């Protein structure tokens, strides 16, 4: 059954029509990826689902409930978390405080145990518990951003270019983490520049071009599709 359903949304930035009727869905337990060139509207789509932007028309439903007038601050408690483009961790707070903020909507007494869980999954963060997040390396910051999003115990985790700017070895690590989270039962909606890696890990994929979805299908099919290979895999 579909956990997230986006139905014909249109999103504008002032007069700019950024999303022109996008529809897709994410089923419980899937990894779905959204690929496309720079400026295609991938981040805009995720930000709209998370409630940071309002669609001018169309319908978004999460777990069967309409989300259109739900502000971003409320979508977290419904069970979705967005790990935004550019990480946007709180640079001036410590690693631990960032994780605490990730658990902002959860009962205070459950938060320390969840932080410990994150430290188990990301031992690099535990060593740096008291470090100011802005001084972490790029890879560490990305791990913190993912861990922070996981702190709300989301059913749907949305990741906006988690491998951006990372060395190949770290990209591999990030994708391992995505697989682990998925194995632990989290549904994942993933945006990636690295289409090869994204299609390899995903169940299904959508291709976006200038505000529209132009192709969709099982990820391994798209991975072997000639048009996709030419446009996004550099063949």
């Amino acid at each position, binding site marked *: 059954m579909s956990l997230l359903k986006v139905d014909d949304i249109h999103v504008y930035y002032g007069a700019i029509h950024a999303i022109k009727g996008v529809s897709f869905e994410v089923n419980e337990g899937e990894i779905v990826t959204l690929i496309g060139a720079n400026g295609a509207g991938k981040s805009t789509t995720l930000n709209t689902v998370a409630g940071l932007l309002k669609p001018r028309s169309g319908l978004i439903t999460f777990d069967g409930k309409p989300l259109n007038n739900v502000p971003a*601050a409320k979508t977290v408690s419904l069970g979705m978390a*967005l790990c935004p483009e550019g990480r*946007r961790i*709180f*640079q001036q707070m410590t690693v631990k405080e960032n994780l605490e903020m990730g658990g902002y*909507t959860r009962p205070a007494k459950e938060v320390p145990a969840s932080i410990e869980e994150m430290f188990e999954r990301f031992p690099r963060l535990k060593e740096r518990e008291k470090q100011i997040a*802005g*001084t972490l390396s790029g890879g560490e910051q990305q791990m913190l951003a993912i861990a922070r999003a996981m702190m*709300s115990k989301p059913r749907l985790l949305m990741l906006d270019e988690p491998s951006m700017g990372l060395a190949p070895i770290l990209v591999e690590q990030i994708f391992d983490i995505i697989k682990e989270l998925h194995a632990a039962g989290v549904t994942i909606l993933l945006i990636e520049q690295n289409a090869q890696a994204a299609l390899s890990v995903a169940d299904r994929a959508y291709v976006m071009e200038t505000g529209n979805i132009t192709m969709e299908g099982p990820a391994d099919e798209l991975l072997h599709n000639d048009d996709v290979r030419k446009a996004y895999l550099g063949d």
Partner: protein
Amino acid sequence: MISLLSTLLNGLSLGSVYAIIALGYTMVYGIAKMLNFAHGDVIMIGAYISFSAILYWNVPPILGFLLAMLVCTVLGIVIERLAYKPLRQATSLAVLITAIGISYLLQNGAQLIWGANTKAFPTMVSLPNATLFGGSITISNNTISLLGDQLKISGNMLVTILACVVIMVALTLFINKTKMGKAMRCVSEDKGAAELMGVDVNKTISLTFAIGSALAAVAGVLLCTSYPVLQPTTGAMPGIKAFTAAVFGGIGSIPGAMVGGILLGIIEKLGQTYVSDQLGDAFAFAVLIIVLLVKPTGLMGKKVHEKV
């Protein structure tokens, strides 16, 4: 030597008031990213409220003071809701002009209610007369005399400095240790990311105005106990000075506002005592300009670490 010490104490007391006002500017700037130029006038309203409560309604000074805090808290929240919130997406110039408008509204409103002539502010602090430590400290006429009568500290000064210390400690704990305080720091850094955590940004901004305005009331009462003349423009000059102090310390930074306020008070008093009685302000502003030339972000301005 004693005269220097006495000047420093006077400066510390004046600086404490600046620091308390500067906290309001800096918190609002840090969170709502706007300069609330009406902040100085909230100080004046606070002073008038406690003045009226004590002299007209015969309320004990401490209750008059608490009432002023309450009224200013509500006033701050209302100003934000009605005047600034609709302008969240507007240009900063539009917000600035609105703030100046609110400032005039408050001044003219006060003039309408309390009249334009100056009022003598009542005594808020009364110390019991006493002789302590075999006469090395004597308290009389609300003044503490130390060092064989050479150093005098007024009760007002003492209360002002103590209030400032209490506020600094309480606010630092609040910002760093409580969930709400941490949410405020998040909103100040990145509103969107804070929302993604589940933080209600509107509520956080309201809370910031509430705290800033309550502090303004405290500053108003403290200011008027030390300089007991009250008129509708009473808040304007201390407001500008405290704004200067906030910039001096690094606008947006809470420790910066504290340090900036206290230093500005001390510099002003040193300037008055050792340079020229009339040039205290000019001296203080000159120091500000030099600091900003050397360090444009202010003494404790935030360095943002960014990694791609």
